[in-house]
């Protein structure tokens, strides 16, 4: 297929994740609304919200610094690059060797670093509370993520996500205890990192329970749109990650035909839809936990990840 084809697929993937990220959020919201016996907004509502925010003027606090204005772009860029490196519908993306799973984790950490700094920039109590709690959550979620990266890397003998997906797809890895532990841990980390119930509530504005919303309280207009879009990209990233590692079926291999690629896109869309429904079901059936219960939740994820890794150190076949 050559470099041009590869570049084309890579660009298609970047555009696709960006274009479909708001839709995924819309689907989750709609499903939640239906589960709660509400009509709910259209699945296209997030697009309208973003368009509205983009057209509004940005209101900056009087003492907002240049960092406050630059941070949304950095957050968006880091998240987008990370999302573009996760195989969604095809493995063997041209730039997949640029960054492995550890780098993707670290790119998300970069985005969070700037988000937390932006939360502290204006010097309001709410920004500080959000940043402080976000860093507490991430200080446990990130090692848990790295532990399950270790688990995957030990099974596939690679931290390269394309290779991991290929190994899961082709070599008959089968059911393994360690992978089951890693899946549970990954879901827990994904819930925490995306600020979903029971860790954080994306639709709350009740001050004392919010984490993410508290950090972005001072943002408005296009800045807020960039941050919202980055959050939606992050949800796509985590669902794609779960899909490509644990349900890799339908992923088009490197150098596949156009037909296979189209099938890959369809399979990915199906996986995303199922993931969105499961997330909505999970969020509806559970209550938000107190902030200081979160360390227990994430500590459990960390332990599961470590346990999965240790099992693989004991035996390659577990």
């Amino acid at each position, binding site marked *: 297929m050559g470099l041009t084809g590869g570049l084309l697929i890579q660009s298609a993937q970047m555009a696709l994740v960006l274009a479909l990220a708001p839709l995924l959020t819309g689907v989750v919201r709609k499903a939640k609304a239906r589960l709660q016996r509400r009509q709910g907004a259209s699945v296209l509502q997030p697009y309208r919200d973003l368009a509205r925010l*983009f*057209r*509004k003027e*940005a*209101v900056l*606090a*009087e*003492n*907002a610094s*240049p*960092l406050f204005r630059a941070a949304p772009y950095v957050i*968006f*860029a*880091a998240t987008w*690059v990370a999302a573009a490196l996760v195989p969604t519908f095809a493995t063997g993306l041209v*730039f997949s*060797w*640029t*960054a*492995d799973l*550890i780098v993707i984790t670290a790119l998300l*950490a970069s985005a969070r*670093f700037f988000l937390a700094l932006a939360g*502290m*920039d*204006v*010097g*309001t*109590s*709410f920004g*500080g*509370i959000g*940043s*402080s*709690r976000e*860093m*507490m959550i*991430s*200080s*446990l979620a*990130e*090692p848990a993520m*790295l532990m399950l990266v*270790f688990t995957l*890397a*030990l099974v596939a*003998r*690679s*931290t*390269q996500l394309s*290779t991991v997906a290929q190994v899961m797809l082709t070599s008959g890895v089968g059911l393994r205890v360690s992978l089951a532990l890693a899946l549970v841990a990954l879901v827990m980390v994904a819930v925490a990192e995306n600020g979903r119930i029971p860790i954080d509530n994306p639709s709350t*504005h009740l001050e004392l329970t919010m984490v993410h919303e508290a950090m972005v*309280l*001072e943002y408005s207009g*296009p800045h807020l749109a*960039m941050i919202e879009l980055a959050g939606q990209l992050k949800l796509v990233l985590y669902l794609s990650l779960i899909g490509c590692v644990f349900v890799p079926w339908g992923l088009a291999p490197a150098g596949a035909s156009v037909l296979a690629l189209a099938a890959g896109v369809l399979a990915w869309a199906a996986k995303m839809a199922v993931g969105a429904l499961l997330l909505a079901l999970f969020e509806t059936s559970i209550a938000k936990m107190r902030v200081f219960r979160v360390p227990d939740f994430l500590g459990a994820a960390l332990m599961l990840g*470590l346990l999965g*890794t240790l099992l*693989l*150190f004991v035996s390659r076949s577990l």
Partner: protein
Amino acid sequence: MLPFYPAFLAGMMLVVLADDAFTFLFGWEFMSLASFALVVSHHGVAENVRAGLVYLMMAAFGTLALMLAFGLLAAGGEGVSLQALSFSAMRAHGPTPLAAAVVLGLALLGAGSKAGLVPLHVWLPLAHPAAPSHVSALMSGVMTKVAVYGFIRIVFDLAGPPAWWWGVPVLLVAGPTAVAGVLYALMQTDVKRVLACSTIENIGIIFVGLGLALAFEANGAPAVAALALTAALFHVVNHALFKSLLFFGAGAVLVATGEKRMGMLGGLIHAMPQTALAMLVGAAAISALPPLNGFVSEWLTFQAILLSPDLPVWGLKMLIPAVGALLALAAALAAACFVRLYGIVFLGRPRSAAASQAREADGFTRTAMASLAVLCLAAGILPGPVIDALQGAVAPLVGVRMTGQGHLAWLSIIPVAEGRSSYNGFLVFVFIALSASLAALAVHAFGSRAVRRAPAWDCGFPGDDPLAQYSAESFAQPLRRVFGRSLFAARETVTMPPPGDMAPARLSVSERDPAWAFLFAPLGRAVSALSGRANAIAHLNIRNYLALVFGALVLLLVVLALWA
């Protein structure tokens, strides 16, 4: 204090060039004493004097351990000659396995106390911040690296081939050092002390790499040992870069405001934008964020950890992933620590008059910081040439070198094999820059460009006192509750006045360093109790002294007679 500064530099250089034990220890003591003099240069402050005293004792202890290590290494050569003190003679006849094991322990004690390994770190958060800022930068950024050099020279070069278990004690000390260091840093409220504690964390990361290298080298995987040692040396270079940068920034803040208490700072990004930018690069680099340099060395360490299932020894198989988890925890906590430091000092609103009247640092200071920030970025996006440059040092120590990285296509690095893992800092940097510019362009082309300044929203409660912002203490509160309760016995006591009473409510936080509470404080009490007893000997009359001398003489003769 001016004369001690060049002397300190000369001592550090002499240690590195030394090729015999005497020159090494001479340079080591030169460095220790010169830095002691620099630490107490503001001896008007009682705390600095105490810091200097603790430092002096720990330095003497470290030198003693190194002296014993060299003694063991020099013993066993043919004949009794001072030639045995040269490193070439030590290399020629390796120590016995037992002696080598003791040498490893002594090197961990001697070099580890200078580098700040837990629990020998207690002097470091006291002494490093007490010195003037450029000396703090040298002590944290360079002197701890001289200690790492001493450890590598003794253990990798002079002590002969490692036994299979040599990595175990190093890893057992290094992993907890990394986590404890950053937790200490999170509890501090003094800017320079935060930086000094974070040095402990980074030393832990470096020693994890060294421990991995020992484990792999001894268990027949020299290629992985080369990877781990490269990671450690890369982090040595990185830490020298960003810790110097951060201490310079702290120094600039200190000069601009006269404050290093975080609770008195804030909002300095407005008054000192260039300092703030350089510090942002340093904070992101030390938090191991791509595409900066700190991430590359941690990534290489993780790659070495992921190769440990190939080791034949069970103990190591179980230990290394646990150390990996500690390392991951330390990396995440470091990000929290530097968000806190940067957010409190440079962002938000000024918490004191001094902070609101700050002025930008002078040209020399800014140049020094800017060049270090550029180097941090350069080493992050071009890691290949740095790795290649380190191979000359790695190859003689573990026997093999990593495959060349500098010439790979697109400036990637591929430490093991292409299908296994690769990283391209340059492209990650370009991608982030491109996407951010694209987003900015899109907003400018299609979105609203209007910007209005207004009072902060703050959920409808703007205009509160700057002191109501999140402070260093409150930012760390969630982490203190999660990690500090068991480890540091952190306690919060709230005193609430009864209803109707207008007295202020008070919240006080107490914590203690377990190393100090369980190791050094009992030791200090024992020493002072013993000296109290021994004090009685100082007030005897002449007959008793004569009897004492006579008794000691008889005892010695008896021992000598029995010995023969």
